[in-house]
């Protein structure tokens, strides 16, 4: 069983994407906003008015940068804790009762060459699991009590290896940045619409109205991107990560069949009550716990295709 793409190549590729998101995306966003202001400024009748618009741009820029940085730092520092508490996960104690699961995670971590992550349990009879954490050193794996009970040891190893692959590949980090980026675009869009949408009723002057109209259009464009375009990009990235994590996980355990049969069992009962309302959490799980929308907006590739690829590796 030969892995099509080396683990390290995949990590490098992900690091480039993260670089793009963290450096290029904010710059692109600022350039977009700057151009919008410039366009509006150029329609101004006097140099003074033009100057006013530019001053406004430079006035709001520090705030936007501050908000972006703040949100990013927030997601880096407590993104994983937010996910875990959202899922109602509790830290698994290292005692005799959980010895099996502890050993399993330790062994897979050794084979993957990452530090042993913290283990969390979700009290739910369904079968699902997710990994979170900004870096391999601070990563956590959450497993439902159902998945521990209902899978055979080798199948559980396969699931753990899949999550370990997400950790090793820095998939979680990329996902957090994508979610934050999408959130920022939506936030700016919403602010534009609220601020200019409200004040337009007070304004009597035609020109002011048309400028406010432009800002509302700008806000709508951002919201359109946030709700109609960005999800497709995010889900496409997510589906690719799932395939890659299946392959890398199978490489860690040298046992694709175990993961394939685990996926078969998980696909029958993946619904976790505490994850019912979150699309973003759904993308993190080994199998989408929500109803499948199918196609381009799905967080995961079709399970049949995943199993077929895994069985093709043997």
């Amino acid at each position, binding site marked *: *069983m030969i892995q099509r793409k*080396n*683990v*390290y190549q995949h990590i490098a590729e992900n690091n480039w994407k993260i670089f793009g998101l963290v450096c290029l995306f904010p710059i692109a966003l600022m350039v977009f906003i700057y151009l919008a202001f410039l366009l509006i400024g150029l329609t101004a009748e006097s140099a003074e008015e033009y100057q006013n618009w530019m001053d406004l741009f430079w006035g709001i820029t520090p705030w936007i940068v501050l908000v972006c940085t703040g949100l990013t730092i927030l997601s880096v520092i407590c993104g994983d804790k937010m996910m875990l508490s959202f899922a109602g996960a509790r830290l698994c104690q290292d005692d005799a009762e959980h010895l099996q699961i502890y*050993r399993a995670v*330790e*062994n*897979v971590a*050794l*084979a*993957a*060459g990452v530090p042993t992550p913290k283990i969390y349990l979700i009290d739910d009879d369904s079968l699902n699991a997710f990994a979170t954490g900004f870096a391999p050193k601070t990563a956590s794996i959450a497993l439902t009590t159902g998945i521990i009970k209902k899978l*055979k040891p*080798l*199948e559980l190893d396969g699931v753990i290896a899949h999550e370990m692959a997400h950790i090793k590949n820095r998939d979680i980090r990329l996902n957090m940045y994508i979610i934050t980026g999408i959130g920022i675009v939506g936030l700016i869009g919403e602010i534009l619409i609220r601020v200019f949408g409200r004040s337009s009723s007070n304004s009597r002057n035609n020109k002011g109205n048309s400028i406010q109209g432009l800002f509302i259009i700008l806000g709508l464009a951002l919201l359109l991107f946030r709700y109609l375009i960005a999800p497709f990009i995010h889900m496409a990235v997510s589906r690719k990560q799932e395939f890659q994590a299946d392959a890398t996980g199978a490489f*860690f355990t*040298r*046992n*694709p*069949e*175990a993961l394939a*049969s685990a996926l*078969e069992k998980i696909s029958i009962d993946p619904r976790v009550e505490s994850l019912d309302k979150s699309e973003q959490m759904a993308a993190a799980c080994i199998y989408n716990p929500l109803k499948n929308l199918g196609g381009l907006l799905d967080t995961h590739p079709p399970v049949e295709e995943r199993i077929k690829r895994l069985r093709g590796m*043997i």
Partner: protein
Amino acid sequence: MLITLIVLAVFIVYFIAVYNGLIKNRQQVKEAWSTIDTQLKRRYDLIPNLVETVKGYAAHESGTLEKVIQARSEAMNQTGAKAKGKAEEGLTGALKSIFALGESYPELKANQNFLSLQQELSDTETKIQASRQFYNTVVMAMNTKVEMFPSNIVAKLFHFTKEDFFEMSAEEAKAAQQAPQVKF
């Protein structure tokens, strides 16, 4: 003139990148080796306890115990992945014969200490396997770079050499290749 400079600059950047990559590889190999080493040491520490426990129940089997002690000290004295791998393989075999004693001495088999040592040792063995697997993956990445053109030029220039794999016995290699069948 400018083109020569650009070409030269590209070469230098490439050299630095490959050199740093090789350094990183070597570091990864060292790290992976120390992980194996930790597990091996844990196994060495557990064996004297095991021998003491078994002695109390199966004094006649001193030959088997002797063999294990010998295999342990031999494994401890070996250095380098290749030699150590071979010695460890012998130790694994010797340990199996001790656990087989449990079958002929029911009292030993019922001993709590013996049972927990057996569990500990089998866990250690799984961990040695897992860390060896990672070690070999890292060594493979390093060796590929040392051998492949054009990175082999840099490797030769700075004396990077191929690293040894931590060998598997033929039996283990076969088991690793054949994924266990899961029945439904």
